[in-house]
């Protein structure tokens, strides 16, 4: 292993080649991960900017900042960009891409060129989406509900549909690459029972990518055909059923929530044992819970349609199944908590994000129980209660996990440490800003404020003002890490190969890793998370 003193001259994946071609034509999974990191961050800030405009409009009950049609486009594009171009690819395409081969001791993903292709597909979809945004936008809501999207909206539905369709292939190829890599490329000794939980969760995510995304692809394609060629599959004027669209759409789009949250759970399952210096409590239960969530997650889609005109009996079935998927999520929360018991807990930045994740995900999950309960769902569905709930899962859960993971693996990715003090501050700001933004929305929702309204009765104003105030704090919290990550690339302390003394294979190669990851193929002889066999260096032990 190279020591820190040598790492200046040592060749690694970042300094092996320079120049734009060496990046745009790279097949190195680590470089592709960085390409994704840059492009995803870009879309995150666009989506975030749209969110801030939405919150500003909602500061007052009157519709005074933007016109109604502009507002409709704002929330539509916010949803589509954030979901398809940020949340879904975020952890898998950045951290997954970087870490899957490293964690199993492989030189690269199984299909490096396909991996690059999926980034290009992502960019094609992204640029098309951006073009849609800049030349008029879409106003259908991110859900594209028919017949509004097929027969009534006069905005760029086809273009947005095609953008998401192309982006879908990027997801499918990423998932395919992960599954093949995990099956075929493991280093000797890396059995499935020794796989880090990060990989179990990515395996589960890939299953959803592979089996869910194509259904969304064909559904959006049918909507595009319906607009472009007059096919009438969802058209009620020709006896078509708009609910069929909703079934097909949610068949993917509900499991898509698990695409966002499962990788985050994987990140937390790495961070919590590392900063508690303990084996994970109940490894096999946490691993199987990931697979369980991926499978049961496909059985619950129509709980988005309880008031949509579905049959009463189908509603009962879907409500029942929805409660089943809550069990594996609960198992995970309990296991993370139990892992801390009798540990040696450090409050480093990644751990703070993990605390935040567990807290916010717990609240998101519990409010999910409200929405799965038929009687209550009728009242709160399509209100701000739903908005708050899924933001707790998708922003409180997924983004907290993403940021936690970015901090945890940043030394490995960049070879530099980020400033710890700023890191903790940002984690705190994000947590406070997030709760201030979205907690009031639970109350708003139960009071009956429907989603997607640009004007609202004045009695809702107090809570909306709180929410808007929170969103500005949240924005600061998201900007901070970007600034100090960039800063650290030049001025950060040089990182050790294993700054956290973590057990994973990715920490047993240099920081940043060489192009083919390992000097020689590692032989794995230990279980995951053997923190009892890992001693802490003096400086880490003395911290706090």
């Amino acid at each position, binding site marked *: 292993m190279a020591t820190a003193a040598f790492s200046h001259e040592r060749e690694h994946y970042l300094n092996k080649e320079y120049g734009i071609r060496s990046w745009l034509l790279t097949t190195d999974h680590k470089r592709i991960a960085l390409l994704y990191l840059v492009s995803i961050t870009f879309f995150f800030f666009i989506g975030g900017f749209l969110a801030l405009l939405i919150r500003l409009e909602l500061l007052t009950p009157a519709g005074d900042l933007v016109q109604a049609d502009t507002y409709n486009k704002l929330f539509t594009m916010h949803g589509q960009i954030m979901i398809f171009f940020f949340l879904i690819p975020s952890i898998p395409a950045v951290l997954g891409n970087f870490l899957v081969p490293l964690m199993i001791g492989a030189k690269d993903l199984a299909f490096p060129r396909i991996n690059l292709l999926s980034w290009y597909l992502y960019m094609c979809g992204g640029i098309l989406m951006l073009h849609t945004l800049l030349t008029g936008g879409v106003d259908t809501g991110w859900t594209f509900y028919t017949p509004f999207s097929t027969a009534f909206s006069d905005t760029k539905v086809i273009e947005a549909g095609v953008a998401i369709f192309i982006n879908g292939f990027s997801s499918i190829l990423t998932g395919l690459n992960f599954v093949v890599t995990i099956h*075929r490329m493991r280093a000797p000794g890396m059995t499935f029972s020794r796989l880090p939980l990060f990989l179990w969760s990515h395996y589960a995510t890939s299953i959803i990518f592979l089996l869910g995304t*194509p259904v969304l692809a064909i559904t959006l394609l049918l909507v595009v055909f319906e607009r472009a060629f007059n096919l009438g599959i969802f058209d009620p004027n020709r006896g078509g059923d708009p609910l069929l669209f909703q079934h097909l759409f949610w068949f993917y789009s509900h499991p898509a929530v698990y695409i966002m949250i499962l990788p985050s759970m994987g990140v937390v399952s790495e961070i919590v044992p590392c900063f508690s210096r303990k084996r994970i409590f109940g490894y096999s239960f946490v691993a199987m819970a990931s697979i369980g969530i991926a499978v049961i997650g496909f059985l619950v889609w129509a709980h988005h349609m309880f008031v949509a005109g579905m049959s009463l009996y189908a509603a009962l079935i879907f409500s029942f199944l929805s409660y089943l998927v809550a069990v594996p999520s609960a198992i995970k929360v309990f296991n993370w908590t139990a892992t801390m018991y009798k540990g040696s807990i450090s409050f480093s930045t990644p751990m703070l994000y993990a605390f935040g994740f567990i807290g916010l995900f717990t609240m998101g999950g519990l409010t999910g129980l409200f929405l799965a309960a038929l009687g209550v769902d009728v009242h709160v569905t399509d209100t701000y209660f739903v908005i708050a709930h899924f933001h707790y899962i998708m922003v409180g859960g997924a983004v907290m996990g993403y940021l936690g993971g970015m901090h945890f693996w940043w030394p490995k990715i960049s070879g530099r440490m980020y400033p710890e003090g700023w890191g903790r501050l940002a984690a705190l700001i994000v947590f406070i800003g997030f709760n201030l933004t979205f907690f009031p929305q639970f109350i708003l929702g139960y009071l009956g404020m429907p989603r997607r309204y640009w004007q609202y009765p004045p009695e809702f104003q107090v809570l909306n003002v709180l929410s808007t105030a929170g969103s500005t704090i949240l924005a600061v919290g998201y900007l901070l890490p970007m600034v100090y990550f960039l800063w650290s690339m030049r001025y950060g302390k040089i990182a050790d190969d294993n700054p956290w003394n973590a057990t994973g294979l990715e920490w047993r190669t240099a920081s940043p890793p060489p192009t083919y990851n390992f000097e020689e193929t590692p032989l794995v002889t230990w279980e995951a998370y053997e923190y009892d066999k890992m001693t802490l260096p003096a400086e880490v032990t003395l911290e706090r």
Partner: protein
Amino acid sequence: MSDSSVAVEHTPELRHHFADMEQQRNAASLGMWLFLGTEIMFFGGMFCAYLIYRLAYYNEFAVASRTLSLPIGTINTAVLICSSLTVALSVRAAQLGKQKLVIVLLVLTLLFGLAFLGIKGYEWREKFVEHHIPGSSFSFDEAMPGHPEAKIDPRHAQIFFSLYFAMTGMHALHMIIGVGIFAVLILMAWRGRFTPEYHTPVEIGGLYWHFVDIVWIYLFPLLYLIDRHK
């Protein structure tokens, strides 16, 4: 490591990140199978729509289905089955290292594929002539079976044709992609790239072709064979 795989390690086809040819081959084959899994779900969305509407508008679907030509559908099925045979034989020829035979069989496959597309195109043209293309010019003037006085609802027949065009269109698109893949394979075979040790592309391309064939094996009865006895 066995002797044979040490020899294999020097083959130029082995990509740097794989340990040996065996691993590379297995990865490629698993990748293709997974992709075919996603394809099942891709067509599955349309099969779902088909199932729902067929149950809802059974009579209209039956009448509309009977306007499709059974002989043409049967012939096209046979054409695709022949192409699957030539694909399977070409993989075998590649395994045995018969390079010329591989080229001949791949070309035959390509021709069968083009024949299928040609026949399909002829059928589509017929639909155009008969105003069975969904949209404003759609017209469908048929009576309910057994009730000559009762016309069937043309809007529901239109749903059948919407699904017909979506399903056969998506299938044809897959055929066109398949033809492209096979053109590349022919080029590779022409350059003598395939040996008994390395012919993964033929195998993988073959898997794709067979899958597209299987989709048609289902589309044929679902679209052409509703209530044919009346």
